[in-house]
């Protein structure tokens, strides 16, 4: 286990343990009541989902044009986390939607493009697993195209009539809601960093093992 793992994991766990209290203390939202509180996990996980996709895209570009294996490992880890956090978003969202809008799902732009981005991450993992030799580059190419999707998701709600809340909501939150939200964002960011570093570490160990096998052949 790398040295930073235990302290970072401990901090993250403590913060997550504390977050429900902050969330409970935040005021109820006017129309939706208790159900709205899913927002405090839904929004941060959505941000981390997009962040993860961007990290994957940038690492993929650097791998494709620079050839550094470290970037490739980073891209692979980020893709897995995109799937993970995307799953969290796509579960918490409908749970909230069912109560707030009356339907589990809506085919508006933001939901559709998020689902699509999530599927691109899945496709990345499938290519890595089943593509055979050279699949690292193929997946990197895919990730670049997937990353082009991210700004589209984010700004889409501002340009289409949709029942999904627009991006102007967050900056205008009342303070006590804001506290709970930013605390949750910090939690999720820490979790993201923790998992990402752990995953990259695992890949590094694998690469070291491969190198050892190769040097056996000398």
């Amino acid at each position, binding site marked *: 286990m790398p040295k930073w793992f235990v302290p970072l994991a401990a901090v993250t766990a403590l913060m997550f343990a504390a977050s429900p209290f902050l969330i409970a203390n935040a005021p109820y939202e006017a129309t939706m009541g208790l159900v709205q509180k899913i927002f405090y996990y839904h929004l941060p996980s959505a941000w981390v989902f997009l962040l993860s996709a961007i990290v994957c895209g940038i690492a993929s570009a650097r791998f494709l044009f620079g050839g550094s294996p470290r970037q490739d490992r980073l891209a692979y880890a980020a893709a897995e986390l995109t799937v993970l956090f995307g799953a969290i978003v796509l579960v918490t969202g409908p749970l909230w939607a069912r109560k707030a809008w009356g339907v589990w799902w809506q085919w508006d732009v933001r939901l559709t493009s998020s689902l*699509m981005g999530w599927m691109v991450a899945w496709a990345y993992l499938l290519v890595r697993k089943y593509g055979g030799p050279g699949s690292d580059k193929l997946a990197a190419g895919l990730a670049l195209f997937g990353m082009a999707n991210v700004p589209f998701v984010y700004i889409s709600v501002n340009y289409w009539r949709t029942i999904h809340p627009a991006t102007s909501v967050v900056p205008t939150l009342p303070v006590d809601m804001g506290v709970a939200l930013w605390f949750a964002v910090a939690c999720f960011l820490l979790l993201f960093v923790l998992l990402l570093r752990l995953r990259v570490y695992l890949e590094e160990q694998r690469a070291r093992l491969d190198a050892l096998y190769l040097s056996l052949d000398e």
Partner: protein
Amino acid sequence: MIRTAWLVLKKDLTVEVRSLEIAYTTLFFAVSCVLFFAFALVKEGKAPEDGAAGILWIAIAFGGTLALGRTFERERQSETLRALLMAPAARPAIYIGKLLGIVALLAAAEIVLVPLVAFLFQAPLLSHPFWLAAVLLSGTIGFAAVGTLFSAMLVRARSRDVLLPVLLYPITVPVIIAGVRATAALLQPDVELALVRFWVALLIALDVVFVTLALWTFEPLMTD
């Protein structure tokens, strides 16, 4: 560079015209798709009203995937893709040549598909031919731009037949959505041209992004 693209395009068209294998099979497949969906969605002897736009684009997407797979399978035999890459020609030019070939193939299929869909669904697809052509062309280019790149990438990969749709469909969802919305808008009894213009503008933007990205990444993706 343009010369290279033109040479590749001419070569592709020559090869295709000799046997017409891909043209016929893609067309037949796309037509079967249309019929399949029509049968699946028909209720009380009538097809769904807005089904025409969606079914048309699905047929283009599925047929396009088939055409892409077959075209690059041809380059895999005798490893001619390698020979193309060995030439001192600029790699992006090879991509453009191949892209134009695929677009030509799909355009030929669409010329048959559009009247067929119009006929089966009583859809007034031919009421604004210029706009429909613009929609189809920009959508096809977007789809083919990504498809050509991914197919070329997959030529030497394992499981390439299955991986092409897996990679292609999520990325081209915006293109399909825009294409369908634009086509559906054209089928309304009173067409809102502003809406159609909006979707076409979006399609063109997507085309520019995809083709630029493909040109940029073609070289590193093709070298081992």
